[in-house]
């Protein structure tokens, strides 16, 4: 049954307008009322996005829930939104994570509560906007506008070096984005339209495609982040408040991967094929080298940040292997598994990294330290917490029956079709990931109680249990039965591969 409501628009504008309302009306009421309002808004948005899932037709690769209104008449820019099977899981991830973040900030944030809650709600709306925009300029507006609340979240509620971290975060991302804007404007000059569909259809020569691909790469590689433009991420994560880290890791990083899927691959397929060696190389460096870097971290948040970069390497690997698989098997459909693995990895990483940051947040709220050495023997005083963290650490290491396993497994299996050495190097992450995650877990949680501060720790409260338990359910559900997720995206991924298989230069030569 389809409802007549503009569901997707509601998912974007309810949190944005609600967030503004929370900010401006919230300064006069009690913090508790502000939090309740924010939670109601976040839950309402989650409910709306679940309606999207219910009404979504997984058998179709077309853009669903589409809405299209003229925005800027003179340049044929439209407020055009819609989602397919690639965007829907990410929208759901966004609305789910925001609820988690609102609950996680319940007792922790004491300063300017209304602004904190409002910023996250606005951020939510903008992120949903990024995943559903079908007009490139609309996409760009959401993409950039998103930086403003995040900039403020890190800068206002962050740690001691927050100013450095947040300005670095903003400038890095802005650097990539402005070149994307130039590329989009160039594409407009060629295609005569800002619609994503027209940009995907326009014929481009190989050298044009290469330039555009590089411009897109700057924007998306910074967001993913890929080695060597990843250095903003550890800083931003370490300094951000827990909620900010969760949103950064769980959703913002996914925008890079989404950008590759929505822009780079369909708009510049030939350039993507020409540069696939570079992308695979960078991905493998991220997986292996950053894995080693994670191993030596003393700061828990930094360790998880590096682990995120390493895991996102899987995503880009899964996406850009398709050309090698095609060369080996002659069939793009074989590459579908790699792309789907990358998608699952994105969603799963959203849950796991979010959960890991929340676990560190739980400890940090009590001890005000993120250093591994300050902990030890936490299990003796926080048994319930230790159990949850165990699950997430295992998931981060890619243990079967957790969501972390599904994505990594799909990518590694399909990488065998591309090249044995890709598979070999990618598989080292199973060892490295287990090493750095479990070693950290062991040092923090197991052993004798290390000092008096640890001895005074109290186990997680009901609120924290609720947050961690809901994430645990998500991680396990996706790990044991990923079929609903795969079914939703399958047709859209196949459609994408058909687009990529269609060389644009050959049409140019033909015409």
């Amino acid at each position, binding site marked *: 049954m389809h409802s007549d409501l503009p569901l997707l628009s509601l998912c974007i504008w309810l949190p944005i307008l609600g967030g503004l309302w929370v900010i401006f009306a919230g300064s006069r009421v009690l913090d508790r009322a502000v939090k309740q309002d924010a939670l109601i808004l976040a839950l309402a948005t989650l409910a709306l996005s679940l309606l999207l899932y219910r009404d979504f037709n997984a058998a179709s690769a077309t853009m669903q829930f589409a809405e299209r209104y003229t925005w800027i008449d*003179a340049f044929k820019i439209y407020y055009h939104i819609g989602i397919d099977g690639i965007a829907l899981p990410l929208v759901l991830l966004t609305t789910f994570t925001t609820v988690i973040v609102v609950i996680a900030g319940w007792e922790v944030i004491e300063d300017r509560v209304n602004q904190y809650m409002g910023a996250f709600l606005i951020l939510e709306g903008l992120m949903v906007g990024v995943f559903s925009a079908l007009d490139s300029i609309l996409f760009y507006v959401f993409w950039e*506008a998103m930086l403003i609340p995040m900039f403020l979240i890190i800068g206002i509620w962050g740690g001691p070096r927050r100013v450095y971290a947040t300005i670095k975060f903003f400038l890095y991302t802005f650097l990539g984005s402005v070149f994307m804007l*130039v590329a989009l404007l160039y594409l407009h000059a060629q295609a005569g339209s800002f619609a994503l569909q027209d940009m995907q259809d326009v014929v481009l020569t190989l050298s044009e495609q290469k330039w555009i691909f590089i411009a897109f790469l700057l924007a998306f590689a910074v967001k993913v982040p890929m080695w060597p433009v990843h250095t903003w991420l550890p800083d931003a994560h370490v300094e951000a408040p827990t909620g900010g880290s969760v949103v950064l890791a769980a959703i913002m990083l996914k925008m890079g991967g989404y950008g590759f899927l929505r822009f780079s691959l369909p708009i510049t397929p030939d350039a993507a094929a020409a540069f696939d060696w570079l992308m695979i190389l960078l991905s493998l460096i991220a997986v292996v080298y950053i894995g080693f870097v994670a191993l030596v971290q003393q700061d828990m948040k930094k360790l998880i940040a590096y682990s995120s970069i390493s895991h996102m390497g899987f995503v880009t690997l899964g996406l850009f292997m398709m050309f090698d698989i095609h060369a080996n098997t002659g069939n793009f459909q074989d590459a579908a598994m790699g792309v789907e693995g990358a998608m699952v990895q994105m969603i799963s990483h959203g849950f796991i990294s979010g959960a890991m940051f929340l676990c560190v947040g739980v400890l940090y709220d009590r001890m005000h330290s993120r250093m591994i050495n300050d902990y030890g023997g936490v299990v003796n005083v926080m048994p319930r917490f230790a159990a949850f963290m165990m699950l997430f650490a295992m998931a981060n290491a890619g243990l079967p029956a957790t969501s972390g396993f599904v994505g990594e497994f799909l990518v590694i299996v399909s990488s065998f079709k591309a090249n044995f050495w890709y598979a070999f190097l990618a598989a080292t992450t199973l060892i490295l990931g287990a090493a750095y995650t479990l070693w950290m877990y062991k040092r923090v949680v197991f052993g004798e109680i290390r000092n008096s501060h640890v001895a005074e720790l109290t186990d997680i409260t009901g609120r924290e249990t609720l947050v961690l338990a809901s994430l645990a359910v998500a991680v396990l559900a996706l790990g044991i039965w990923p079929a609903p997720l795969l079914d939703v995206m399958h047709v859209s991924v196949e459609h994408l591969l058909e687009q990529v298989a269609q060389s644009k230069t050959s049409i140019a030569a033909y015409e």
Partner: protein
Amino acid sequence: MNDFALILPEATLLVLACGVLLLDAFIGKRVPAATFWGAVVSCLVVLAQVASPGYMPEAAVFGFAGTLRVDVMGTVLKSFLLVLVVVSFFYAHEYFSKQRQEVQGEYYPLALFATLGMMVLVSANSLLTIYLGLELLSLSLYSLVALQRDSVTASEAAMKYFVLGALASGMLLYGMSMLYGVAGTLDLSELLIKVGNLEEQRLLLTFGLVFLVVGIAFKLGVVPFHMWLPDVYQGAATPVTQFIGTAPKLAAFGMAMRLLVDGLWGLSEHWQQMLIILSILSMGVGNLLAIAQRNFKRMLAYSTIAHMGFLLLGMLSATASGYAASMFYVTLYALMSMGAFGSIILLASARSEADELSDLAGLAKRSPWFAFILLILMFSMAGVPPFGGFWAKWFVLKEVIVADYVWLAGIAVMFSLVGAYYYLRIVKLMYFDEPETPYPVSATTDLKLVLSVNGLVVLVLGIVPSTLMSVCISATIPYLPW
């Protein structure tokens, strides 16, 4: 329309400005608000005349033996700049009543004469009319800067402005004499035709063009003719800086259009190259030097230099939509600049100008709403959506790319990245730093209202830029290729 109907708004403004001068001399000392309201009403009367339907001709109309032209672009620019002048009067009134200064009365008539100069400038169709308008504008501005005669910095700024301004006027005149020598006419419409036919005199014409471009560059304040700008911005009283930084930029854009496009279109390939160099230098020097500033007004001065470089990008594409982009840019820039200086006026107290960057520290805790307004303005200047400044940059970049200067667009976005840093620093000061005093900013309701509306207009233009874009595009329709 007869000649006098064409010049009616300018003539009215002249009479009213003289009236305001008398008003100030006889009543102003007893009732300071009288001069202010007189000036506001004068501008609104003239605005009503300019914006009346009869004054918006389909095609350009010429008067006074071809020395004056009334066309859509001129009319639109005049309306915009009158609105900006009225808004800056409101800010100035608040500033002067806060500072309790005695010189306030002279501000309004001088500003009105400057406005008259701007209006003459944008409706000029002869090299002499241009010069007339420019000098009327400039002389009024010099005296406005010197208005605070007790202030050393203001006097220094006025002196510097005057000397360099005189030099620039000389350059402009020299270039004009060169053009007259070759083409034998002062009329821009005739010049347009003659330049196309004077193939063998190209070198001399180009030589004259260089001096014209210098004059324009000085008025806009682009590198390397920007030296006056930081000192004048810092030295002058804040409302004077605000006045100089807003409406005259529109007039300077109008002057550039009249000279380069209406008159010397035939030399476009030459001035395009000159503008490329000027704009790259401006964006580079402006953005880099702005980082090093500690004074907010001086930082905004360098940011102006960078913005004017961006403005030239639209013009140098030499297409109708490129001019529309520049016009949109300069309008948006004036609005943002108005609000930024307005924030300084808001913070100023009887004791302090509050123009140091450190005065902004912790503003979000003192007055969250005005910190938010300044946040809008700063992100808008940095070109971050969803604020008006983004569309200004977007429009210009789009035209640069359509004109096949993709590399130039690349340079421009690199420099806006540099620019983002110092705008972010303002936000950092307001939101991340602790205030020195916990007290909210005190200001009158009028000032709060004007500043809030100003900031929200920039936000609204970011969400629905369509109307203003269409106005700018329709103003440049006559420049579409036939």
